[in-house]
């Protein structure tokens, strides 16, 4: 299990494969494989999703910790939840910016919680041993269904429930896996009795909505284009989506050491603040590093 930790040190080549094969008959999610040295290790390994907004938050964590005197290693851009969770569970990664609702649903697919406090409380119950969440931030970045302003006006749409009255074919766009998520097409059908077909529009979902390829788009609520493109986020009275606040997921062994620094960051990160960070990335095209440094300075969290 030494392989994931140090991307650079794999020179053993084929030999390592043999060793890895011999050592681990089973897959890498084995909790027993947790390395005891991790705790004593001074370096805090911070991961991030392959999502620019998540990477900015991770970079903020990293710079805040560096300023507080910690040694930090960045393992950014490591794909999707199913890919990186095992590495957090086995201690390869110590800290990761997460989202309460999506993380809760990962561990408990059938959860009934939808409201912020409820989601956060339940999340703490379902996390496996060795993992904790620090304070959640007021900033949210949750899935939401959006339509264009014209479409909303034309069909008098305010809430997802109104969609069942619409007489044109409804096409939902989003990430490919949305098709299989509890809040995807099936969830819409069960909760709101709305039938949609699905197109995996991926990273260009908003563009596809504007171009008319789809007429409903799954957009993260902190996406600045909801405002700039005048999209209408449909209300969700039945709680199809879970509230999803930004929350630091941490290895229990280091959580106490870093809590003060990271909780201060979470408290300072507001919903509007998160949208502003995203604007700096997509509109001003600044690097995560610069955005994080400025944000920390503006909020008086470094120095």
């Amino acid at each position: 299990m030494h392989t994931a930790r140090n991307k650079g040190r794999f020179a053993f080549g084929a030999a390592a494969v043999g060793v890895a094969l011999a050592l681990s008959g089973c897959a890498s999610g084995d909790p027993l494989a947790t390395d005891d040295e991790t705790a004593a290790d001074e370096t805090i390994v911070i991961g991030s999703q392959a999502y620019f907004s998540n990477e900015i938050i991770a970079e903020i964590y990293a710079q805040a910790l560096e300023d507080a005197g910690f040694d930090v290693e960045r393992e950014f851009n490591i794909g999707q939840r199913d890919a990186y969770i095992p590495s957090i569970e086995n201690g390869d990664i110590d800290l990761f910016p997460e989202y309460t609702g999506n993380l809760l649903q990962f561990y408990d697919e059938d959860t009934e919680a939808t409201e912020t406090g409820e989601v956060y409380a339940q999340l703490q119950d379902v996390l496996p041993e060795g993992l904790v969440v620090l304070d959640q931030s007021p900033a949210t970045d949750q899935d939401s269904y959006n339509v264009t302003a014209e479409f909303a006006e034309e069909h008098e749409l305010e809430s997802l429930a109104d969609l069942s009255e619409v007489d044109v074919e409804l096409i939902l766009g989003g990430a490919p896996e949305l098709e299989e998520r509890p809040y995807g097409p099936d969830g819409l059908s069960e909760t709101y009795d709305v039938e949609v077909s699905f197109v995996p529009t991926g990273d260009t979902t908003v563009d596809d909505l504007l171009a008319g390829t789809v007429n409903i788009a799954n957009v993260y609520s902190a996406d600045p284009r909801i405002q700039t493109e005048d999209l209408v986020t449909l209300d969700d009275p039945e709680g199809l989506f879970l509230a999803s606040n930004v929350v630091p997921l941490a290895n229990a062994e280091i959580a106490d050491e870093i809590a003060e620094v990271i909780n201060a960051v979470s408290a300072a990160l507001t919903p509007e603040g998160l949208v502003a960070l995203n604007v700096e990335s997509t509109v001003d095209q600044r690097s995560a590093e610069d955005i994080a440094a400025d944000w920390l300075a503006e909020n008086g969290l470094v120095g």
Partner: protein
Amino acid sequence: MNWVLDNLDLIGRLSLEHLRLSITPILAGLLIAIPLGWLAHRYRLARGALLTSAGLLYTIPSLALFVIIPPILGISYLSELNVTIALTLFVIAIMARSVADALDSVDGNVRQSAVAVGYGALRRFFTVDLPLAGPVILSGLRVAAASTVSLVTVGILIGVESLGYLFTNGYQRRIVEEIFSGVVMVMLVALLIDLALVALGRLAMPWARRPGRAAR
């Protein structure tokens, strides 16, 4: 061009990373392909089996191989070893055939002359067959290298950082310059490796003047 100028250090760092990720599979693949190619050249039965399985391997999408290797070998999903192993396999798939063809092309008379002057099998292979097959092997390796450099980018989808980061990140943020600079740098890395291979070929095979031109 603003984005490029503001992010020169990121582009530079990713290019070096990309270069490093490309070189290992190219070299490892070549080293493994030489004995396999020899087997295919020497034994008819091995030829069928080897070249067929190489052909099969070749049809598997690279992303699929990246994803399937961790559960099969029991390595971490985050390890760059996944990309290294998968790309090594692709290089082997191309080069096993190339090496076999190259050895086939060595003049039988030359080989027999070597036997006649008392060369043993091993000595003959390393001092006669392999050098004479060299230019053909090199031209195969250049194709394999170009493809490897391009495929490294797909590794970003499983979190292995390379110039591919500029593709996915640029696509998310809709920054055309970011993707474009990634494409250009991938081609530059490929060119660099190609020039290095040609130069190495000239050093190792001074008798084969202009192997590259003759090959392509």
